């Protein structure tokens, strides 16, 4: 019972860190596609006096990636119903040119304003409408969630690391007699601390397997029935095989840091 408790006291904080790491990876991947969707779904309206090529728009601002000309005929047909053909031609001739302009990345409101200023500096451009407010509210909510998650993961990682180091000190105390005897007989630090490394590495593997199991369950069982669009659409992104390697690498790094910090924090285990 004591044996299990000792290991759980190490595995649980380590799992907390790994869950944080994996949550971040998953969140990053799923929101990447969400971000892509927001980016692709967004376009600003540019009104020009004369026709304007994409290359000309790009020279005004480097974030501009696409431009789609809106057919003026469609506009005329909407506003000039019942008007004679000759009048239609006159209206068409006096109408400016309309473009839906897309961007290469997801930008903040200030970025959009910058583009607007750049475009409006061109004499050929009459008007730019960024639709910044609706775009910005989604962006801000999205940024806030991302920031909060990062903050929470960092906080959880720091607290968990302290718990791991504390547990490591308990282990060191538990193995004090053995380490002391080995030290007296000239065992180098790495050899006499070997027991701590062995136990910690074994627990790192256990924590990785348990964390992976949780995410595999989320991926194959929970996500499909969750009713959360972003989860259901990005089910494949919830856990990848490479994540297991990342988790194991992180776990090993954490336990090695913890063991080293405990082993080197005191000069030996002499009486």
């Amino acid at each position, binding site marked *: 019972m004591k044996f299990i408790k000792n290991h759980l006291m190490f595995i649980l904080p380590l799992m907390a860190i790994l869950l944080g790491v994996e949550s971040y990876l998953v969140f990053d991947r799923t929101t990447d596609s969400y971000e892509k969707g927001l980016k692709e779904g967004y376009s600003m309206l540019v009104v020009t006096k004369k026709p304007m090529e994409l290359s000309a728009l790009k020279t005004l601002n480097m974030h501009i990636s696409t431009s789609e000309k809106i057919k003026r005929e469609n506009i005329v047909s909407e506003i000039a119903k019942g008007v004679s053909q000759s009048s239609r031609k006159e209206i068409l001739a006096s109408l400016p040119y309309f473009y839906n302009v897309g961007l290469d990345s997801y930008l903040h409101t200030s970025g959009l304003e910058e583009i607007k200023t750049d475009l409006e500096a061109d004499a050929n451009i009459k008007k730019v409408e960024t639709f910044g407010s609706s775009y910005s509210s989604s962006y801000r909510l999205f940024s806030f969630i991302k920031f909060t998650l990062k903050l929470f993961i960092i906080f959880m990682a720091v607290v968990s690391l302290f718990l791991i180091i504390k547990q490591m000190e308990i282990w060191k105390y538990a193995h004090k*007699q*053995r380490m*002391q*005897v*080995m030290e*007296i*007989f*000239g*065992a*180098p630090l790495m*050899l006499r601390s070997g027991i701590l490394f062995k136990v910690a590495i074994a627990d790192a593997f256990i924590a990785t397997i348990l964390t992976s199991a949780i995410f595999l369950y989320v991926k194959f069982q929970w996500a499909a029935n969750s009713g959360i669009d972003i989860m259901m659409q990005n089910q494949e992104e919830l856990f990848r095989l490479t994540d297991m390697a990342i988790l194991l690498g992180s776990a090993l790094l954490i336990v090695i840091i913890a063991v080293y910090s405990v082993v080197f924090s005191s000069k030996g285990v*002499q009486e």
Partner: protein
Amino acid sequence: MSNVINASHLTLAYDNGAKEIIKDASFSIKKGEFVFITGPSGSGKSTLLKALYGQIRPSEGNLVVGGLDLASARQSKLQELRTHMGIIFQDYKLVNEWTVAKNVVLPLMIAGYSVDVQNTQAHRLLKHVKLAEHADKFPLELSGGEQQRVGVARALAKNPVVILADEPTGNLDDYSSNVIWDLMENACQQLETTVLVVTHKIPTIFSLPYRHFIIESKGVYEVH
């Protein structure tokens, strides 16, 4: 014969030099000598022994063991020196979670000997200390005398250059005490091992020639 241990104006102290235990002691011990160190309780016998295996550094003066100046030696050099020593404690200092056999071969394990060599040596050493049948037991399953014999077997495992023994027969029955004295006498006689024994009382039946130092009033004096 060359000196294995050489102390010159040696001062040993605790609390950063505030509490002096041994002051201005000078002595030397040659290879293959058997030395008893006696003195009243708290006189500094065990402190001197700890200094000889580098657990306490000299506050002043020099202490050279096996050519290594312990006052300035790096920790890695001290570790290396200890691998050439056999140390015996009054409280045995065995690892209770390890079997008797594993305890005995600890110095071989540290030196990186193969498991086969370790097993062969464990059998030979335990036979030597008359504990062959207890190889797979754990220390706490043995009597005090038997545990100390395991400690002696461990000290002898790697044919050390020096054996340092701190009250090795302090709480033991006559049979175990005699076995232990025999083993140390043999090591000294046959392998030319230098043996330093801290004890309250020199055994009455002791066949080898020996030197006797007494620690008193912070000084180390040889009794002729």
